[in-house]
């Protein structure tokens, strides 16, 4: 059945797609601002990880180190807004 489904290259009747479309569609391309995880004052509270609507912030609370996956981060800034110790900056991304 998979050969009849929507892929990166081809459409299918009814635009029926296999699972995993949100992995294939790299929403990082939508981003204007990019987070900078400073890793200076992190207290390991996991707020950034928990509020990320894309589920693309991850890290280790014991080591107090968090980062994000730039392929999917849309740059919404919720992690930076919610960080209780202002350890995340949002900066304009230039390519």
């Amino acid at each position, binding site marked *: *059945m998979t050969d*009849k*489904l*929507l892929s990166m290259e081809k*459409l*299918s*009747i*009814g*635009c*029926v*797609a*296999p*699972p995993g*479309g949100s992995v294939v*569609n790299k929403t990082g391309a939508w981003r204007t601002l990019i987070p900078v995880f400073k890793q200076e004052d992190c207290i390991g509270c996991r707020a950034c990880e928990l509020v990320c609507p894309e589920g693309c912030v991850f890290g280790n609370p014991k080591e107090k180190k968090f980062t994000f996956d730039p392929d999917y981060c849309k740059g919404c800034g919720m992690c930076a807004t919610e960080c209780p110790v202002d350890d995340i900056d949002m900066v304009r991304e230039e390519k």
Partner: protein
Amino acid sequence: MAEKQEILEGAMAVAHAVARCRPEVIAAYPITPQTHISEELSQIVADGELDAEFVKVESEFGAASVILGASATGARAYTATSSQGLLLMSEVLWNIAGMRLPVVLACANRSLSAPLSIWCDHQDAEAIRDCGIIQFYAEDNQEACDQHLIAFKVAEDRRVLLPAMVNLDGFLLTHVFEPTILPDQELSDRYLPPYEAVLKLDVENPATFGAFTEPDKCMEGRWMIHDACMRSIGVIEEMSAEFEKVFGRPSGGLIEEYQSDDAETILIAKGSLCGTIKDVVDDLRDAGHKVGLVRIKTYRPWPTAAVLKALSGAKQIAVIERGASFGAGGIMTPEVKETLYDAGLAIPVHGFCVQLGGREVPPDGIREIVERAESGEKQKVYEYFRLRKEILPELVPGA
């Protein structure tokens, strides 16, 4: 297998014809003048005469959503609605067309609010003209019944895979008792075998219908709806011919040409009004007038080639509509003009909105339209026929 003619109310007859299509899921919400169709279908299911799931929903949006989901699992799905109900479905209907799901629905044509009216015109169906739903229009209850079988047959054809809608004029057909032959079950089963979906929702093989597309693919995804709709023209002709072979009735087809072969004046209309028009055509023919009717039975896809062939010999044309595009002209009139213009034919076309919200059009109204078309007057704007100016208020308050 002799089929028996019975005296049946339109909506009841349609419900029994739909049951003979063996839909597996029906979801509907009551709205005048459609209600008798879904009411009778729920009775048929409750009585155990049809093995289907009848889903009671909270709105027409819910009804359309249920049949979308049901069809995506590979079930044959049906709903019926009218007017505001159809418009409440409209967001879902665009999705159904884009997901290429062959659901069938009936629209008991009724005016849109406001002002509130429960009576017939075609503005409800015409409001969703562009979404990729095949639209049939019945002249009488026999056609309304038979077109449901043809609708499923065409919609489910793998060359098409689009939703299809049978339009029957609210009250004028739904509530009128006419001699009707209900399609025989054995013949129906022969004509319409069970639906086999190409792709369907399946927990073992998960898939997303109508998935996200980037701008590099979306336009082609939309174009495929148009392509299938255009391809359905041939399929409608083929499946209508097959219907006639099995049942012996010419209920399908793209258009009906009534006395139009040698006609100098051709009227164009759809729906039950064509019964009145045919009577007027007969009278005028008796009086030596070369008048004919081209009845649009399939409105979407627009049957360009058939319409052009039927009209090409006319000296003047009058389109008689139960709809209008406020701020522009008619709905069907510009389509007729486009068909002629693209073929390089400069036949004068007059457009008349004869009825919104159930206004009656007596035979003398049709005769007046024929006279106006034949008078040589050049119509400058689409005309709201016999508009009662005497009841209008001051149109610019305080002016």
